[in-house]
């Protein structure tokens, strides 16, 4: 199959009916593997990894914190991509997928913030420090809230899709800008945070001794979160498609009185 034909075949899934049929078929795989990965990863991490020499048992929090933070960002990237697809190709499924993903992003951001704050309590001696990374996630959380609120506020579904897509585009630029601004405003004060970052980015041995012992269960959790995200997006997009169809059917009923 040529690349063009492959690309065309991909667009086929923009058809709502085809999307529903296919997602119904593949969803069980994602549900099962994702939950299996997360359960195994968490049990492995929680019960069978040693405490860190510096952070003690709090190192176990990375198995939740890092994957959630990863998905909080990836979710926004996915929304950005689907928003662009909607604006350029006007596939309804794409816009609805972005809408379906946003609440998942909110929950992921919340988990990252909550675990960060709980972890910060013994480490920094305070629940909340205006650490650049935590602050960036707080701003991301606000973007998510605004995005979801805008979807909810607009009645006409196509208008809502258009406006939220533009917001997502503009918001992405400003989110990057905020990230830079926040770093400038408060140059990273907390060594501890870099353990988590190093684990997330390289996953390999670093000066801060994030060793392979922690890495494998963490990787498993990250894969699990990615798969769980896919399963949730597929499921929720299906829900959004049906909700949209109900709306269209009811409107049709009204028009034909």
């Amino acid at each position, binding site marked *: 199959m040529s690349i063009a034909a492959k690309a065309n075949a991909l667009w086929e899934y923009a058809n709502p009916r085809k999307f529903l049929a296919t997602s119904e078929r593949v969803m069980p795989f994602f549900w099962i593997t994702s939950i299996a990965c997360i359960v195994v990863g968490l049990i492995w991490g929680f019960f069978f990894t040693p405490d860190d020499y510096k952070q003690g048992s709090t190192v176990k929090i990375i198995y939740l914190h890092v994957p959630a933070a990863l998905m909080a960002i990836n979710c926004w990237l996915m929304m950005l991509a689907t928003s662009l697809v909607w604006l350029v190709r006007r596939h309804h499924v794409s816009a609805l997928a972005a809408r379906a993903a946003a609440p998942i992003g909110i929950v992921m951001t919340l988990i990252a913030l909550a675990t960060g704050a709980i972890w910060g309590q013994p480490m920094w001696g305070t629940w909340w420090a205006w650490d650049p990374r935590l602050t960036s996630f707080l701003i991301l959380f606000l973007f998510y809230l*605004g995005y979801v*609120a*805008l979807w909810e*506020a607009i009645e006409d579904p196509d208008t809502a899709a258009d406006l939220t897509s*533009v917001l997502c585009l*503009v918001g992405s630029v400003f989110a990057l800008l*905020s990230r830079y601004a926040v770093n*400038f*405003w408060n140059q990273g004060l907390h060594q501890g945070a870099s353990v988590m970052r190093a684990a997330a980015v390289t996953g390999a041995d670093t000066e801060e001794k994030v060793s392979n012992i922690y890495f494998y269960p963490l990787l498993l959790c990250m894969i699990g979160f990615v798969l769980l995200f896919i399963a949730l997006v597929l499921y929720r997009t299906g829900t959004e498609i049906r909700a949209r169809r109900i709306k269209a059917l009811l409107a049709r009923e009204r028009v034909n009185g």
Partner: protein
Amino acid sequence: MIALLLRDLKLALRAGGGFGLGLAFFLIVTVLVPFSVGPQSSLLSTIAPGILWLGALLACLLSLDRLLALDWEDGSLDLLATAPLPLESVVTIKALAHWLTTGLPLVLAAPFLGVLLNLPVPGFSWLVISLLIGTPAMSVIGTFGAALTVGLKRGGLLLSLLVLPLYVPTLIFGAEVARRGAMGMETQTPLLMLAGITAATIALLPFASAAVLRINLR
């Protein structure tokens, strides 16, 4: 274009136009701060740049929902959209009018309110410079938010929620310039960033605002 600007200025200045609303709010915030944090002048002079920037930002935020809503309600936007004037210019002019009636008065009032908060002497010029450069960005970003929410019945709260994170970079760099200036530190880096943000938003954001307005007019 000039006609639109003049009309907006005239409307703002006449009765019920909302001119002075932001200014009054700015005054209220700054006057109330010493009552809530205490009268120690050392504390006040430390937080003065931040408070003044925050007050200006909130005053700006307060006046945003009138920016396009009135023209939307009375159908002026419909007619403007079919006029020979491109919508990109319309939103730019609207932002400019908003800045002239809200941002500029805030810039001019800020030094006087700075006196109330014991702003250190070197801080005055930096405060005015940072606000002068930063407030246009707030007007342009606010116009984008207003264009997003213009068709909604209770868009005010949503508008604030949407604009809030967009204001963060401007606030950080703007307040940083004022803070460093007040402490006699180097201000070049944040000042350049602030100017960069303002220039980029003025150059690019009107296209997004116009696109969003077109969608809302459908």
